[in-house]
């Protein structure tokens, strides 16, 4: 793979939630990922694997009890890279969030201000970042909402008057309004109907292509990853266990966890019996020694319980962390 222009690079990132003075949940541990310009990266894993926490850290959105360590380097318009984790709140709000990087949070249908009309959400955003007045913002917003099959009348509506799917569309539109270079989407299409899911996903991909942005899609739904992401990162218990181009990971998953995930999904037209995993993910207050997956892994060996697995790289940047693939 040729070196592409990096827009975001996370190096050895750790994220912890403080739950008492002596106890923390180690939600993200030693994660390094890089995202290049125009790329669509998927992050997969089950609930509690740290994927949402990772995205919050990438966005630099750290609210107690979440704390983070490590570097998340971003490069705005060819300036030297800055670590978003060391920037102050005001700078992030003025220069980075919405403009350079936008974030579509989970349950995004519930993030609109219930006391503000839909149009005022657009007006506020456009005023702050572009300096448009209310009249002009409404004009811009009117054309814009029609591009996603919404009527312009809804700008006058309050959020509670719209259905969940419509609100989700509004949040998506707001996040893409300023043509950000990086779009972080956390479960952007969960909890909507499949028809709307497809429409939202295609809209997101269209805009990403049109703006040349990089897109990070976080979802547990492997179908969405198969249809949207170019590269797939599989997380388990706060760590990245496997990373590869999406087609390769579906064809030849190496980590036993990725295998189980991909093999457990029923598909239309496939009559073969499917098997799932037993057990449940480990308690991240006290992560286990060795490989996090060892107690659910059908191939677990002695060493898996003692030492963390090494990182093994195959061609096409296919990276896996597992003891199965070491030469001995």
């Amino acid at each position: 793979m040729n070196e592409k222009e990096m827009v975001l690079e996370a190096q050895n990132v750790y994220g912890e939630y403080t739950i008492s003075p002596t106890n923390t949940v180690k939600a993200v541990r030693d994660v390094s990922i890089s995202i290049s310009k125009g790329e669509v990266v998927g992050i997969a894993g089950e609930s509690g694997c740290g994927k949402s926490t990772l995205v919050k850290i990438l966005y630099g959105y750290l609210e107690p009890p979440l704390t983070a360590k490590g570097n998340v380097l971003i490069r705005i318009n060819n300036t030297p890279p800055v670590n978003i984790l060391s920037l102050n709140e005001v700078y992030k709000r003025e220069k980075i969030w919405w403009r350079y990087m936008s974030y579509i949070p989970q349950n995004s249908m519930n993030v609109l201000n219930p006391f503000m009309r839909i149009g005022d959400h657009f007006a506020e955003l456009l005023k702050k970042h572009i300096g448009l007045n209310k009249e002009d913002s409404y004009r811009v917003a009117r054309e814009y909402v029609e591009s996603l099959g919404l009527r312009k009348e809804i700008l006058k509506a309050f959020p509670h008057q719209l259905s969940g799917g419509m609100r989700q569309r509004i949040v998506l539109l707001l996040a893409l309004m300023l043509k950000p270079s990086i779009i972080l989407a956390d479960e952007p299409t969960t909890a909507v109907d499949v028809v709307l899911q497809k429409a939202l996903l295609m809209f997101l991909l269209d805009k990403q292509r049109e703006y040349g942005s990089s897109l990070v899609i976080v979802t547990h739904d492997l179908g969405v990853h198969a249809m949207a992401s170019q590269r797939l990162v599989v997380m388990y218990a706060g760590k990245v266990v496997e990373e590869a181009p999406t087609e390769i990971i579906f064809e030849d998953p190496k980590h036993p966890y990725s295998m189980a995930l991909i093999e457990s999904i029923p598909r239309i037209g496939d009559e073969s019996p499917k098997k799932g995993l037993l057990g449940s993910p480990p308690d991240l207050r006290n992560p286990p020694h060795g490989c996090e997956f060892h107690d659910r892994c059908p191939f677990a060996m002695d060493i898996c319980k003692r030492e963390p697995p090494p990182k093994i790289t195959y061609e096409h940047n296919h990276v896996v962390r597992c003891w199965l693939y070491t030469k001995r």
Partner: protein
Amino acid sequence: MNHPLLTLNRVTKTFRYGILGFKFKAVDNITLTLEDKPHIFTIAGESGSGKTTLAKMILRLLKPDQGKILFKGVDIYILDNITFNRNIQPILQDPYAAFNPMRKVITYLEDTAKNVLGLKDPYNIKERISEVLSYVGLDLSKVAQKYPHEFSGGELQRMAIARALIPSPKLIVADEPVSMLDASLRINIVNLMKKIKDEKGITFIYITHDLATAYYLSDKIAVMFRGTIIEVGDSKKVLSKPLHPYTQILMESLPQVDPKRRSEWSMKRPKLGFHIEEQEFALKGCKFMPRCPYAMSICKNDPPEIDIGGTRVRCWLYK
């Protein structure tokens, strides 16, 4: 004397928005028959299709405004509670919401054994509970002292299934039983339902929006849209060769779990309706008409039900 297991005869339920708001039919004149042989019957539909309302009516949690629901030929409202509960049992979507967080989960199983099955001797109760728990893959000694939050989602759903199995019912109504679970655990619960059907001869009504598990698990399927059943038939047939335009669009929109099929999937763009849900409920004739690519003027009239090779579809296209 050969009655079907369950018959829904022109069942309708009307809800109203607010006190003076307009009325809409969440379930509109549904007629359905479940044969009396162990099988899994899926009721599929998106949010707002009326599938949960239908489930609640079968479970007697809501009373239909019109129409009758017959269990083995007897109106379910004539059955006394014990007979009803011995024959029909629920499994609900969110196990954490189904159990009181302040109560040990095992007490629900004890109550069912006492009140529904009528066991009195504590030894018999324990024996029955231990039997159903080991059947679903749990160990009584490990779960006896636990409260809901101490279970994982998959285990708690197993507890819910074990509870439903205590009276050996004829029919289990499972409303989105796996939608809250992670993918790797989901299939285990789905497999468990299949095993229960095969080994215990219990029929399931599996209510879901997940068409892939419906394909994997079920024998028959009814697809709902805005309160009506638009297509019903053999699951494999309906889902691989859908007839109704709505079912066709659903199947085209479903993400394929195979990156090689991405370009095929991206070819067709779904058309989004300007109509909001309430307006679709209020439509006369076919409620899918505003979004249907094949809409004709005749669609303003109620579509007829047409039998095509065993699948019954409600659409003017096939007239």
